[in-house]
């Protein structure tokens, strides 16, 4: 029972991370119809920066947070400029999702390998940024870092929902999602909105990498795993919904930790794959998904 309790706590903590990546995907997908495969690379970048600046160089934690978030913003925006903008400029938005899938995939794997040139394929342990002394609930030890990971993600979900539903920024974003051409005619600079969406998603991914690194440790290889587990979170939780992405992330998190009590841990990715396929076959739009994004009736299958 204690084992299951620990697994649930760990699953919710790491699930928050997958949720963050999934929300980044949703933000980009909703605003531009692009699946940015580089999100996994940015997570890995955040994790390795944390190892380098914090663990090795001993920089203050707050300054590392600022640098990682700023780096995420920059790389996110650059991924748009490098892998999406040229495609749009060449042949508009028809088949944009499919084409950018290939461009971001290629660029992402190339960057991952460049990182491997510097850091190799080694896994580096990183100390926790909060106390390692567990809190006990009902005799079950819970690492504070899991609470931080889940808590920060929850906070981001709430802020995002408010931003989207209550502010002009959110209105602009939703208008762009609903009808990019109409938004353009209404004077919205769609490209600028999309650029910021890529940047915002970059921040989410980089912060996710920073937060999770004491648990997962830092290595080049986490990029592909995070990219795909984040996608599983989005697909399971729901296409075009932040709440769905968050809950989908938690489901994926729990599916990585709970079955590992009983089965071979190398089967974790198989279990998540199977779970994702089953849910998608029953409900292609995911548990909380809508036909369009953010509850819009219009299907944006781009």
């Amino acid at each position: 029972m204690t084992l299951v309790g620990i697994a649930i706590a760990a699953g919710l903590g790491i699930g928050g991370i997958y949720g963050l990546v999934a929300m980044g995907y949703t933000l980009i997908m909703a605003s531009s119809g692009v699946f940015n495969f580089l999100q996994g690379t940015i997570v890995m970048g955040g994790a390795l920066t944390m190892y380098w600046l914090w663990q090795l160089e001993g920089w203050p934690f707050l300054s590392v947070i600022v640098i990682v978030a700023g780096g995420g913003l920059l790389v996110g925006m650059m991924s748009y400029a490098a892998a999406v903008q040229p495609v749009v400029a060449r042949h508009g938005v028809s088949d944009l999702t499919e084409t950018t899938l290939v461009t971001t995939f290629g660029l992402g794997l190339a960057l991952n390998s460049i990182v491997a040139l510097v850091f190799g394929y080694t896994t580096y342990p990183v100390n926790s940024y909060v106390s390692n002394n567990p809190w006990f609930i009902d005799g079950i030890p819970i690492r504070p870092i899991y609470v931080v990971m889940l808590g920060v993600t929850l906070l981001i979900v709430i802020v995002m929902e408010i931003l989207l539903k209550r502010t002009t920024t959110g209105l602009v974003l939703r208008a762009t999602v609903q009808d990019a051409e109409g938004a353009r005619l209404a004077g919205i600079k769609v490209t600028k909105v999309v650029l910021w969406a890529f940047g915002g998603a970059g921040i989410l991914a980089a912060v996710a990498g920073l937060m999770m690194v004491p648990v997962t440790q830092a290595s080049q290889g986490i990029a592909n795993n995070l990219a795909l587990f984040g996608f599983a979170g989005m697909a399971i939780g729901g296409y075009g919904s932040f709440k769905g992405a968050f809950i989908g992330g938690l489901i994926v998190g729990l599916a990585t930790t709970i079955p590992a009590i009983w089965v071979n841990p190398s089967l974790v990715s198989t279990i998540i794959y199977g779970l994702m396929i089953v849910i998608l076959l029953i409900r292609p739009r995911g548990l909380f998904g809508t036909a369009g994004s953010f509850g819009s009736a219009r299907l944006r299958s781009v």
Partner: protein
Amino acid sequence: MTTATTTKDTGSRPAGPNPTGVGGLVRSIARRSAVGPSTGRKPTLVGPGIVLVVLALIPLMTNSGFELSRLELILTYMMVAIGLNFGFGLAGQLSIAQPVIMGVAAYTAGLLNVNQGWNAWATLVPALVAAVIIGMLLNAPGFRLRGWYLAITTFFAVLVFPSLVTAAQRWTHGSTGLGPITSWPGIIGTTPQVQFEFVLGLTAVCWLAVWAIAYSKWGVLLRSMRDSPNAAGASGVNMPMLSLAVSALASLPVGLAGWVFAHSAELISPNSFGFNLLLLLMASVMLGGRGTLWGPVIGTAVFETLSLYIGAFSVYNSIILGFGVFVCATAFPTGIVPPVREFFRVRLAKVQIAGEPSLAGPELDSSVAAAVSTTPPLHAPEAPAAASHAAHAQAEPVLKLTGIHKAFGGNLVLDDVNVDLYPGKVHGLVGPNGSGKTTLLNVITGFVSRDGGTVLLRGQPVPNLRPYQIARRGIRRSFQVPQVIGELSVAENMRLGALGAPPQAGEESVATSRKAEVPRRVVKAAEELGLSAEYLDMPVKELPLGLRRIVEIGRAMVAEPAVICLDEPAAGLPEEDLVVLQQTLHRVAAGGCAVLLIEHNLSFVREVADVMIELQDGNVAEITELRSLHDDRRAKAGGQAGAGTPTAAAGTGRPEATR
């Protein structure tokens, strides 16, 4: 309308907003440069044969078994790339699980060989069967998911497979590798030269199979799957079945490669079938050009040679491949094969024109008025037409809709709609935005299922069916944005309309021949539409919107349907094209077909329609017989038969359409 300006020396289109006048030289070059296998050009195997012979001579140049085994590896990956290109490039199926399919085939062969002692020949069939089954299973989510979702789920499978093999290490020996796997018994396994020729032969068979399919009627079906899936459904093609068939076929070369890989490598381990292989395949297909026959061959030759030189698992190799995918996809999305082919073809065309101008081919004007005759239908002259009209007036409706209901969520879009469509008549469906016009058309054609009401086609009830089933019963449609296959010719696009229908005895034997000949049904439909025969060879991507709409109507006509539904065929067309379209619709109706068209342009509807059906808030507000007016206009048109166009009624003051 301008007349075509014939300038043999200019090599560019005349500047100006209306590029209708195009020189014969440009046109003839454009006709030759149709991308991909297209009609009008007889497929030849001379080039591929020469390449094969040159490759087969390689063992004479080297005695090194090591070099030959490296070349075999390139050929093996070529087969996988051919499989990827078949599914992804030709049929547009976004499935990238080829490393898994290859791995499953390799492990099937390896396990049977190592554990059961089956020799290399005995493992072939099990390996292929395993590849086909896993290929179809991995693509199964595609029936429910949008394309790019399928791409990522299959990519996920590539992440999963090595860990599954590792987890099952009791049987697979995990990452240490499964072996030793024995080579082919007899001469193939013992002589490197013969083994090389053997693998080369298998690769050639895979290439040739794709070549044969690309030039057959299957080539049209596969490209329709990629470029115009809705149109394929509306032409009676059972898309889920076709998609399943493509999954199975595309797995065959991949499974074959897995089998070859297992028996020539002797030891197989899971990391041979991971991201590195996927990256190599994608880079190769993107570099060569997706959907081309030579693309995967050239791409794999370049990148795998590079990989062997750098080291397949080196960091630099994945950097190069990753950037290769990225640069190819952003900078030359068509790959290198189409531009190279274009270059040679243009040169060829220039040489031929310089030598013998007559070879330049007939000069074609790509405007609608030039391509489509505006004279009244030949087989329905004026007087009999009027008589047949009188006959139709008493005729039974060919399609009878009673009490049609449709709601989206709580929004009632169609509320008790009753409409009758009569053979030989044009029915204009008009109404404000949101009145349910498009929904009604989608209900009739099966793209939207109705909630209530009955549909009778020739007196027979039609239940809620899939679009392809409705199309097979004789109801065809067009789309507001024409759904055509750009790289194929007009004739091949029209032919799609006949491919989905159940085969008709006698007819089909003519239609399936793999020559540049045009099926008889297509010629007949073109004649009925008044489309000039020389336009049948034009690639559709070069046609203006108006002609694409005519092509869509032609695609429907090929099936000799009872009802044709047209979704705003006049939208966005210039005034002079409307006159042609109007005449085309009259020709279609004169053949006895019931035409239903959605239209916003009321004056156009008044010109073209016999009956005007007005929808308002999901109800039929009014049905107006326009026949009297119509006959009046026909009489006028008949009065000035020499002009050939009903210009008086159109009121555009447009000069007569002559070529």
